């Protein structure tokens, strides 16, 4: 079965870009969320195989969302999408349960590797 991914980012641009990369690599986008709160809700709703999670978002940031998702599903696979200069946040994300991180500006190859590493 095709693995599904929940894409979380407040920028539509990023979501579209990730979606394209996800589909190019043979996975499917289960849904998209624009903030942490929505991410948690949608995670429960669509039960994806993987989540790509932005950090800086309105309402609820990515770290808090990872925490809540991990609370709900300790086996959740989450890749955090950070920007350069957000190292402390990435460390925190990994501590609270993210499996991997990718750094913006995202590079197609890196996204592919990261997805395949976790889902492949």
């Amino acid at each position, binding site marked *: 079965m095709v693995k599904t991914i929940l894409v979380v980012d*407040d*920028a*539509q*641009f*990023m979501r*579209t*870009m990730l979606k*394209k*990369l996800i589909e*190019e690599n043979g996975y499917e986008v289960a849904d998209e969320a*624009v903030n942490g709160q929505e991410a948690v809700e949608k995670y429960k709703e669509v039960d994806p195989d993987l989540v790509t999670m932005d950090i*800086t*978002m*309105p309402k609820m940031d990515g770290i808090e969302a990872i925490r809540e998702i991990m609370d709900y599903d300790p086996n959740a696979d989450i890749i955090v999408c950070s*920007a*350069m*200069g957000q*190292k402390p946040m*990435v*460390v925190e994300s*990994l501590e609270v349960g993210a499996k*991997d*991180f*990718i*750094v*913006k*500006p*995202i*590079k*197609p190859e*890196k996204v592919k*590797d*990261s997805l395949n*590493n*976790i889902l492949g």
Partner: protein
Amino acid sequence: MDMNDFQELYASESREHLDILNDALLTLENDPENMEMINESFRAAHTLKGMAGTMGFERVSRLAHAMENILDLLRNGEIEVNTEVINLLFRSIDTLELLSSNPDEVEDLDELITELKSFLEIRKIKADNEEQEFVSFSSQEDVDFDLSDDELKIISDNPGNPMIIRIELEDDCVFKSLRADMVFESLEEYGELIKANPAIDKIRKEELDEIFQILFLTIETEEIIAQSLNNISEIEEIEITVVDEIEQLEDISQPEEKEEDVAGLEDNKSDQTNSKKNTNVKSLSKRLKANNTIRVDVERLDSLMNLVAELVIKRTQVESVGESYNLDELNKKLKPLSKVTTELQNSVMEMRMVPISLVFNRFPRLVRDLAQDLDKDINLVIEGEETELDRTIIDEIGDPLVHMVRNAIGHGIEDPDERERLGKDREGLIKLSAFHEGNNVVIQIQDDGQGIEPELIKKKAIEKGVVTLSELESMSDEEIINLIFAAGFSTNEEVNDVSGRGVGMDVVKNKIESLSGSVDIESKVGKGSTFTMKLPLTLSIIQGFLIKVADQKYVIPLESIQEIVDVNPDDVQTIRQEEVIHRRGSVIPLISLYDKLNKEEPDQAKQEISTVIVGVGNDYYGLMADSIIGQQEVVIKRINDLSGNLEKIAGGAILGDGSIALIINVEEITTS
């Protein structure tokens, strides 16, 4: 992946983020403690940086990054909001805007980034002068582990094989230390980390190149270890060497380190006091929800619109066949079809509608800047920014609106001291509002400034030769004030860079009229002025009444029609050589379309005169036609006015039978 696919998306979304930044900064300027706005602007800059970086727009990305750094300090409370930093950020936004519209015109980008950085540096050094600069570390290809006795003891006392794991990260890996950490974490499940080169604490401080090595003690085979590391991203190469003899490890040398002196930056404490704010701009603008929307190129919508328009024409053609041959069955079947096409048309039209906030949003910033330049206190109130208008119109009204708002600030609103002397609020009010009125959208710009003095206008109008003295005598004050829209008229004593710009109000008027709209002014001396623009909701399809004059069909837009009457020639009176009729207590002048459209009038007198009564402003006129055909929806086709004689015609329309009707420009035909 082709980045061009994302160009459009990038353009529109980055536009949104720039608007957010602008709005947030405006709010911050008046409410420096507003954390929400700081966070919001930080996020916007952050997102912009990421998007631009992904698109390869290096200049935008660099500038956004520099802004983000400053906003980050604001966010952490390390610096406070003051005019200096706000102005710097506004300049950055302007440059970002320019970078996306006219990148070639951006000349001082490096200068600006340096300025942002030095702003940052000064604060940062002040906040934390112990922070060390990054010290580069040269990795060595040779295996170099300086083992202590304790470490050697661990190796000899524990079961398993020591192995040296050499990891090479991808050279564009950003957080190398994090990858190394992930490697360490993964390894710890299988054995003991004895030592790393560079040392683990150095690695944690990002003091490493792509390559690092780990001395690892495990009972597992090298295959299993290699596999356990396979799932970590950004690893270029893993090389595992099993060490047979401990002695091999003892022959080692201390790795070299290079220390660099960190140049001490002088603490240039600059003046951070909040300067007096002389603007208070309130923006009530709501942002478009990013959710549940898709973005479509306007051109695609235009082409869809044209297709729908064609469909309407074709439908009308089929309908006319049904009517001329009395095909009842066909007519019946066509009814639902016409319902569908009408709905389709409405939907497409709705899609083209965008909120006027797209235009209004630029005003808070504009007003702020102008008020600052002119030392005036302005309170800008925006109302009805959710009012929707056709995209084409939105694109066109920006400049006229800017011109009028500039005028209102430059000439309308008095200096604060002057206002106080007059017993007014020091703060001048400018109200920008939009609302629906029938098939029109009305946009108003109100100010509570000094108003327009009719006597000054009269003097100027005579000077400029716009009117003659005798013409002036019969004019009301309102008509006189509206003379400022006349070609060649400008009330400016001198052209300044605020309201001058070499564009007169006549240009504004022409622009609005080219959009089938109208504009007029009401003004009371000492109280202020109101500019009112009326614009059609949409441009392409109108409801009209088809009439016939000299065997040619004409369309009168339904929105100007008051009523349609058959006038008995006996009821027509002549007052001051003008033919008029009395209708519900008012005198309505009759206008001969033959005359206005340069047609030869037939001699024979008619029993009844089909007359369309139209309203223009507060006046009514009766347009006399040969016959009235009926109401019809028509698609406006632009006519290129090559001859310059077409001002009485607003456009052309193709009718159901394929013939062409001309759309009458009611305003022109009644006033000229």
